[in-house]
């Protein structure tokens, strides 16, 4: 079975506008006989920035979780983030050296003033930051989707109430509400912090899902489902939700990149992850005064925050391009030439 892509133009209709023909010709050939999901996946896989993002992020996550292990499972790294040892280099400088032979030494990212291993701390911080980010993403995904779906589907007073609630959350900067909620759950686990921050960040998603549902509910397939006797719940989550999936996935991803920076900022201000737990933001906060004397303690956690946030941003950008039907991937110069030749051959 082959489903044709809607927005393709037959190649022979506009011979005199070569650029358009070339674009559409290439696109038509590439998407012929593919389902919508396949087209999206294919576009995503071809997005260079997003693919680099996926690979780097997977690498960082794998590295962080395998180095220190998860819970009772031990990791492969010799130190852990709490125990201190003798300071190897003067001041705890990083022990890796580029000169022959290349070696990592015992503390490749250096040590702090009481000899804790910086690599272990950064890896532990990365673990927690990634975990908090995923929890925030999941929580705001659930809340945002449900609120948006109910508001957009039922309209009327449910819509007004839910949207006023959204207004109430949006009226203050996220960092302010985050700080208050962070303070409320301080002393409990990082997972709890993720849950409360997720309860702050869902608003933009709810608004977008609402808009999407408002336009979807006017479509014929919703009517036909209703005529067939489907319940409201079934219509919303079985028929409409899959059609809004693009908006939801893209915005949850972009929201997660905000989430990691927000978590770091709160931990920095002292309302996020509390000691003895480490997170990347808390590491920076703890060692910011050491910048002049022990810069490695400051550089590494910052670098990991930026890398993670950058990867997630690029993944989100790739997803947005992949889900956007108007978005055409610009073919390479060589492909354009080839299509031009093919078109000429066809004309002859």
């Amino acid at each position, binding site marked *: 079975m082959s489903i044709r892509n809607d927005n393709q133009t037959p190649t022979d209709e506009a011979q005199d506008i070569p650029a358009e023909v070339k674009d559409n010709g290439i696109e038509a050939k590439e998407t012929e006989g593919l389902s919508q999901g396949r087209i999206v996946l294919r576009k995503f896989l071809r997005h260079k920035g997003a693919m680099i993002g996926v690979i780097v992020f997977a690498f960082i996550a794998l590295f962080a979780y395998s180095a220190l292990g998860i819970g009772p499972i031990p990791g492969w790294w010799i130190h852990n983030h709490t125990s201190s040892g003798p300071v190897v280099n003067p001041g705890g400088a990083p022990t890796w050296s580029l000169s022959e032979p290349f070696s990592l030494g015992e503390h490749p990212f250096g040590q702090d003033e009481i000899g804790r291993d910086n690599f272990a701390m950064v890896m532990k911080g990365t673990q927690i930051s990634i975990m908090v980010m995923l929890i925030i993403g999941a929580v705001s995904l659930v809340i945002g989707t449900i609120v948006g779906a109910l508001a957009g589907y039922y309209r009327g007073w449910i819509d007004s109430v839910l949207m006023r609630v959204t207004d109430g959350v949006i009226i203050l900067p996220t960092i302010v509400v985050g700080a*208050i909620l962070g303070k409320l759950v301080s002393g409990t686990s990082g997972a709890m912090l993720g849950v409360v921050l997720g309860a702050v960040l869902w608003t933009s998603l709810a608004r977008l899902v609402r808009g999407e549902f408002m336009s979807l509910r006017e479509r014929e397939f919703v009517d036909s489902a209703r005529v067939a006797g489907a319940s409201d719940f079934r219509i919303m989550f079985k028929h409409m939700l899959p059609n809004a999936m693009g908006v939801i996935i893209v915005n949850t991803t972009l929201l997660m990149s905000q989430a990691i920076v927000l978590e770091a900022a709160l931990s920095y201000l002292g309302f996020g992850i509390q000691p003895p737990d480490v997170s990347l933001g808390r590491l*920076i906060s703890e060692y*910011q005064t050491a910048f002049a004397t022990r810069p490695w303690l400051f550089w590494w956690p910052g670098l990991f*925050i930026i890398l993670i946030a950058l990867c997630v941003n690029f993944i989100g950008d790739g997803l947005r391009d992949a889900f956007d039907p108007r978005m055409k991937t610009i073919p390479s110069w060589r492909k354009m030439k080839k299509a031009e030749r093919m078109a000429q051959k066809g004309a002859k």
Partner: protein
Amino acid sequence: MLKFILKRLLSTVLVLLVVTFVLYLLLNAALDFFWDLRSSTSPNIESLYESRRRLLDLDTPAVVRYFKWLAGVGGCAIGQCDLGIAWKSGQEVTSQLQGAIVNTIKLISAATIIAIVLGVAVGMISAIRQYSGFDYFITFVSFLLYSLPVFWVAVLLKQWGAIEINNFLSDPQIETWLPIIAVCLAMGLFWMGALGGSRNRRLITFAAATLITFVTIYYILASGWLQQPRIGIVGVVLIGAGTAIVMTFLSTGLRNKRVLYATLTVAGIGALLYMPLQYLFYYQEMNWLWMVGLLVVAIVIAVGVGLAFKGPDPWDTARTTFFTVLVIAVLIFADRVLQEWGRYSAHPAINNRPIATIGASAPNVAGDFWMANLDSFTHLLLPSIALILISFASYTRYTRGSMLEVMGQDYIRTARAKGLNERTVVMRHALRNALLPLASIIPVDIITMVGGAVITETIFGWNGMGKLFIDSMHRSEIDPIMAYIVITGIFAIIANLVADFLYAVLDPRIRVNA
């Protein structure tokens, strides 16, 4: 329209009331009002607890206390504000707020304006040169800026933007020219990418930009400009003429001689008035009222000159001269402020380390209007940069997206088909429509900026609202926190109302249904 605004206002005020109620209860649960007594070993600890409980009225239920607090806030309507007391320091919240609000507005307004101007310009160029190297570069940079934690950047800024720069200023010796050459080449590449054109034009742009940057840096270093920074009459003439040419180029094109001569005339008048203004500044104690008055006079003169040149479209000319005079006015102002530089950095309180890393003003720097301004600017510099970096990225992305959408519209094709040149199409037809949605983004972004200011103010010790909020959170003082929430909330409501209003006024397609 009025009915719509009132309805919106009422519903958002209700929302704000509910928000304050919920947050009051949450804060009550989150804050530990006895944190300083927890580790105390004093023998009368029980009575200390008791007095604290009485001080904060903790025996009454939180809901009742909320309404008591609300009554105090409600008093503001009849001129008797009672926002409570910061119990740790015993200060009244109203007195804490006064300086803080001014400081935050100072910080945010400067950063917002610069971020909008830069972001819109770069976003527009990025959209015009879609899929070019420049576009990819800007996209990457804006993603990077999104991902940067402000507090991390702030530490770097303190180190390299202040400490190292101050070291360099006190002893401007260059060890190696490599970084300077790299900067020159980067500037060359940037302008080459931004201006684009054929291969020859790009090469010329690259060479010119590199050379101009190099000559400027060389002049700054070789002439000892850094010890005595100034713009001077020569600078005002040169930069003024340059502005006139650029403004003409952007608005009507250099081929329109009438506009070119009009802007050049304005630049000339600016240069002629330079010396008399110096006398005025010398003999007359200045303040902001004077500044605004002078600016108004300058604008009147410029618009007058523009209209005097008549031509088929006098208001076009007047608009161009208006933008030119703004730049020249800022130039003359900056020149006068910079004249204080020598005295300012030699001041014992500054001790030749002019770029400040902390606070909103240096203590004990008594000086006139100009000195106070310079002091304020050196303190504003770093926190503003930290704030701008984030906002800049979102404005760039936003302008780029909306510009791309507009450029694909039919009326742009029509404009091109009419034979209008590219500048008119981009500046008149595309940019104006692309900027429309920005009216609804700016207020939202200002709220984000207020949030960003929380971190920035804390790091740079800037005594504003954000720092007040964080300090009060650490000290468990509920009243200042609530004051912060109310003021930020009202600010957000006003910003959103202005956005709706602007949008409805600017875009005739939007219908207001009350």
